[in-house]
């Protein structure tokens, strides 16, 4: 049995409908437990006080914001190569989620930055690249909305995603060069952060487990949302196709 079987819209919907309740529940539990644990059962940071706890929203949304674009790139490529409609629709379904995640990351970052750096916004490379990522999401979604023919829209947005990815990476490099900033380096995937040897800059380990739980919860939430929204997109396409067919037959 090949994974491509799930590229059949009907099969996709029936399968995801079975998995979705589990996903919703798992996401709710992970995020709920992670947040409660993080907010009420971990101590404050010795330097940042309780403001540090916004990390439980900030880091997962920021990670998703980037990875959703990568997922869109992958599904766009699958559409261009294998012509599975579900793949293109999944990219379409994921884009607004990615845009919202970028917004959450930017907003929580601003709320965090205000007490820490004394300003809501600085043109720091990380902040700037997220703003740029937001613009890419905006353009991508706008292109989907603008084109009437669904297959044409899928093709064009896939190409935009492909070319956009290259330019987004270039922008990332460009803003890094353009301004070295205030933001600390990537917080999670460093060995020192995990084993807690470097509490100065990295996330110390008391925050680590609830944060991990929140990240898992956000990923589950994203998967559930994408499945759900892709199902909606498939039904919308089906309705559109049926209506067009009615017009032809009339």
């Amino acid at each position, binding site marked *: 049995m090949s994974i491509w079987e799930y590229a059949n819209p009907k099969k996709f919907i029936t399968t995801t409908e079975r998995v979705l309740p589990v996903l919703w529940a798992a996401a709710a539990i992970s995020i709920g437990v992670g947040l409660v644990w993080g907010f009420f059962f971990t101590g404050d940071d010795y330097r940042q006080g309780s403001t540090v706890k916004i990390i439980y929203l900030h880091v997962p949304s920021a990670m998703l914001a980037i990875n959703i674009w990568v997922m869109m790139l992958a599904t766009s490529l699958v559409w261009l190569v294998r012509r599975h409609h579900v793949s293109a629709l999944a990219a379409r379904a994921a884009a607004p989620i990615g845009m919202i995640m970028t917004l959450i990351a930017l907003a929580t970052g601003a709320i965090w930055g205000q007490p820490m750096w004394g300003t809501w916004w600085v043109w720091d490379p990380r902040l700037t690249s997220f703003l740029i990522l937001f*613009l890419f999401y905006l353009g991508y979604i706008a292109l989907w909305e603008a084109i009437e023919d669904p297959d044409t829209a899928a093709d*064009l947005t896939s190409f935009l995603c*492909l*070319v*956009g990815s290259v330019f987004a990476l270039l922008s990332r490099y*460009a803003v890094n*060069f353009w301004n070295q900033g205030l933001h600390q380096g990537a917080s999670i995937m460093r060995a020192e952060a995990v084993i807690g040897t470097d509490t100065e800059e990295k996330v110390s380990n008391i925050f680590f487990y609830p944060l991990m739980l929140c990240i898992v919860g956000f990923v589950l939430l994203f998967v559930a949302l994408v499945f759900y929204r892709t199902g909606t997109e498939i039904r919308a396409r089906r309705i559109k196709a049926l209506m067009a067919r009615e017009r032809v037959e009339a």
Partner: protein
Amino acid sequence: MIALLMRDLRLALRAGGGFGLGLAFFLIVTVMVPLSVGPQPALLASIAPGVLWLGALLACLLSLDRLLALDWEDGSLDLLATAPLPLESVVSVKALAHWITTGLPLVLAAPVLGVLLNLPVSGFKWVVISLLLGTPALSVIGTFGAALTVGLKRGGLLMSLLVMPLYLPTLIFGAEVARRGAVGMEIQTPLLMLAGISAASIALLPFASAAVLRINLR
């Protein structure tokens, strides 16, 4: 290919071809900057390279919606797609024609406008060099945006929304060269990056533009 280039240049120069509009826009934007931020010479001198780059970029953007849309409307693109010329060369030639009629005049006008903005003497050379290296990339990237939105009735605004993020790396490195050059800092890295972006865009983007155009034609 030469025939297509000559036709596009001739069309641009004829009445209603829009030649010079980009240039006029560049002039107006540059004049409006001192009017909006104030006439202090030191302030103007420090923002001049960035303003010139942004002005040139916007002027380029403004002229993009005629690049393919006119040929689309009158059916020329259909005919060009069935002509012996590969669509990749068609979009390359169109980008080249756009650069000659829009980008190059902007490069030549930039020093004159630099005077208005009190650009430091050391900056003139680098503003011209950075624009000369960067505007071809703007034309080629813009052609991709124009190809994406060619089938849409009022695609102009959408095209700006799509093209602007793609312009960012070029703008950042281009303006960085001009800015650093004006104050006598080291410019090698941004200059090489700018040249790299231009070269890579010219080499690779026509394939994407042609692919996108084929999708739009069907």
